[in-house]
């Protein structure tokens, strides 16, 4: 694996495949969800960012899964000094170190650009070392290599593991490290297999913004709630939807409660049952548990709507980076809390995870310009059939628009499918004009007259 392109693909694949195969388990599920194995290796989960330490002849860097360097020269020097001739790709968690305090990923973000800050890396996996690749199940071999390579450095070190024999031991360790010392969670590894990510249940207070009915197809029972956080007093960021955790009684009562506070919206948020949420006055607060929270997925950064609430109506302001909850469960209404920055503000999310940076809004689109247009008509039995051919220049940004569009209309008032459309796109003017000519040549036969 020598080229940077190959390396970037490998580390991206690692993030999408292996990193996502950690089995999430709540702290109260250790006894039931962690498989019964002969031996476990546990370590404290570091709350930082996934990083890759790359050492090849022509590529030496410490980067994130997109291949972007963290720009910490002292760490790169330390890595190269430590790893020596050992070529390969190692996987770690880069974090902001504070003595006697737990790690927090948002602090990494703050401190990364401050060259005086103490940033370290806990190395916990190997993708390739000395031309040898490893599978998930090769933990014992990998552990040996990691311990021998990264044993001497304080800045870049092999993550320490404790060997335990039972799930009861894991529970005790979880209680001590997480419940008492407030660490983020535990990583529990089986010798030849699964890796569990054990975290305490995350608990949030969110504003209820909408609801749908239809649980088990019964229109009198609540099916789902839509919830969000306050960005300002009357501005909300959508976070997600929840459909479990309700008793039948909850479902009945909430329908009659929310029916009375329905409001209008000029935007549709869709529920899991493919109908829009009926929006409600953002006055009620729900307590919601989840086993995990993410700010990006394989499709990229998670982005959701920002809604303004004014004159009893929601309107969409824009899309903004947001999060998704894994396995959210409704715990109850919080009558003691209200929709406010203090009770249901963005802090509900940011205390647990960073939000991604907002992308610069695309500039307003200039008006499209028609470059070619031809119209043909054919008359048959008193009805006029029409074919239209267009090419236009979109004048839109690269991300959202092609440069040119070819469009064709085929209308026949007596045909079953009366109005047919065809579309092709290109960034090449030559190509799109060629497509235009070719389509006219193949579709316009005798009997058609050009207008």
């Amino acid at each position, binding site marked *: 694996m020598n080229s940077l392109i190959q390396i970037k693909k490998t580390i991206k694949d690692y993030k999408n495949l292996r990193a996502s195969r950690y*089995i999430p388990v709540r702290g109260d599920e250790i006894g039931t969800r962690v*498989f*019964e*194995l*002969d031996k476990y290796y546990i370590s404290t989960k570091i709350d930082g960012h996934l990083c890759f330490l790359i050492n090849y002849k022509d590529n030496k860097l410490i980067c994130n899964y997109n291949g972007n360097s963290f720009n910490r020269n002292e760490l790169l020097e330390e890595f190269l000094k430590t790893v020596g001739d050992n070529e390969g790709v190692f996987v770690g968690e880069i974090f902001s170190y504070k003595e006697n305090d737990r790690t927090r990923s948002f602090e990494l973000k703050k401190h990364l650009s401050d060259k005086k800050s103490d940033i370290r890396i806990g190395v916990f996996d190997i993708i390739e070392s000395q031309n040898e690749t490893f599978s998930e199940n090769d933990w014992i071999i990998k552990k040996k290599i990691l311990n021998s390579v990264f044993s001497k450095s304080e800045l870049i070190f092999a993550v320490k593991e404790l060997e335990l024999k039972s799930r009861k031991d894991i529970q005790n360790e979880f209680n001590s490290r997480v419940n008492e010392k407030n660490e983020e969670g535990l990583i529990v590894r*089986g010798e030849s297999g*699964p890796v569990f990510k054990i975290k305490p249940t995350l608990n949030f207070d969110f504003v209820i913004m909408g609801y749908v*009915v*239809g649980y*088990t*197809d019964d*229109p009198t029972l609540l099916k789902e709630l839509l919830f969000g956080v306050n960005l300002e007093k009357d501005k909300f960021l959508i976070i997600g939807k929840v459909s479990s955790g309700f008793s039948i009684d909850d479902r009945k009562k909430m329908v009659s409660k929310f029916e009375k506070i329905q409001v209008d919206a000029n935007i*549709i948020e*869709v529920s899991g*049952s*493919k*109908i*829009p949420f*009926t929006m409600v006055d953002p006055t009620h607060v729900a307590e919601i548990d989840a086993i995990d929270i993410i700010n990006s997925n394989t*499709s990229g950064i998670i982005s959701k709507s920002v809604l303004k609430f004014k004159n009893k109506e929601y309107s969409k302001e824009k899309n903004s980076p947001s999060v998704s909850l894994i396995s959210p469960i409704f715990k109850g209404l919080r009558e003691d809390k209200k929709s406010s920055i203090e009770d249901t503000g963005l802090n509900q999310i940011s205390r647990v995870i960073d939000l991604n940076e907002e992308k610069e809004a695309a500039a307003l*689109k200039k*008006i*499209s310009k*028609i470059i070619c247009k031809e*119209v043909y*008509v054919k008359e048959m039995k*008193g*009805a*006029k*059939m*029409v074919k*239209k051919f*267009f090419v*236009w220049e*979109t004048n*839109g940004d690269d*991300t*959202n*628009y*092609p440069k040119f*569009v070819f*469009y064709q*209309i085929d*209308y026949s*008032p*007596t045909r079953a499918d*009366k*109005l047919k*459309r065809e*579309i092709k*796109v290109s960034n090449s003017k030559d190509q799109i004009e060629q497509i235009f000519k070719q389509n006219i040549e193949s579709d316009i036969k005798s009997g058609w007259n050009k*207008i």
Partner: protein
Amino acid sequence: MIRYIKIEDSNNRDAELTFKSVRTGSTVSLAMENGEKPLSKKIIKSSKEKNLKSLLKKNDPSQEDYNNFSEDLISKDSEIDFELFGKFIGKTERIYTTESFDPVFNINVTEKILNPKGEVIEERKPNYLNSNISGENIIKWTKKYIPKMKLYNKVVLSSKYQIKHVNGLTYDFLYNMAKDLNDKNSFMMVGGGKGNDPLVFNDGGKPFRGFLEGRVKDKSYCLILHISNQEFKGV
């Protein structure tokens, strides 16, 4: 998400295991002559406002309306949104609308039962089935061994799930089950509920009959749950 399943063996002991559908993907991919893979993009081609009935401003246009529309097309370009059509789009959400594409906030769902000729014989409230393979449910060993030679051409075993062990104990459990079935060259019919019910994999899903097949090779095994909802029957 990892999927769990509890299965019982011939001694009525059960264990919690994991399972995953078995599926072989495409072995051939399409690319250009030079090997470059094309990018697939979704673009907007039409919209609710430019739908024919919306352009005619009628829910039930007459033939005369359709005939007259030809003149509109000749003189104007109102059937095209030059700013929207051609735009790349990412994820969209499915939503129920009326036939004139207005969003619907409350729906009533029924189902029509059609006979093999396609004639409606009944309309009723949908029969909602809860999953009987998840949570505390145990898939039962019915003790009905069915030789492979007798079943393979009788029912369509359309989909397969592989059952997997999670530790040494469950390895033994599944290996023994697979060996038993392998040695008898038979399927074991399995069921939900007390053992006679078909299997429902997801809440709101449909029922299927389940048949376990076991294969062993030295110390390794595979235990496959085949599911079926059709016989080999001609029309």
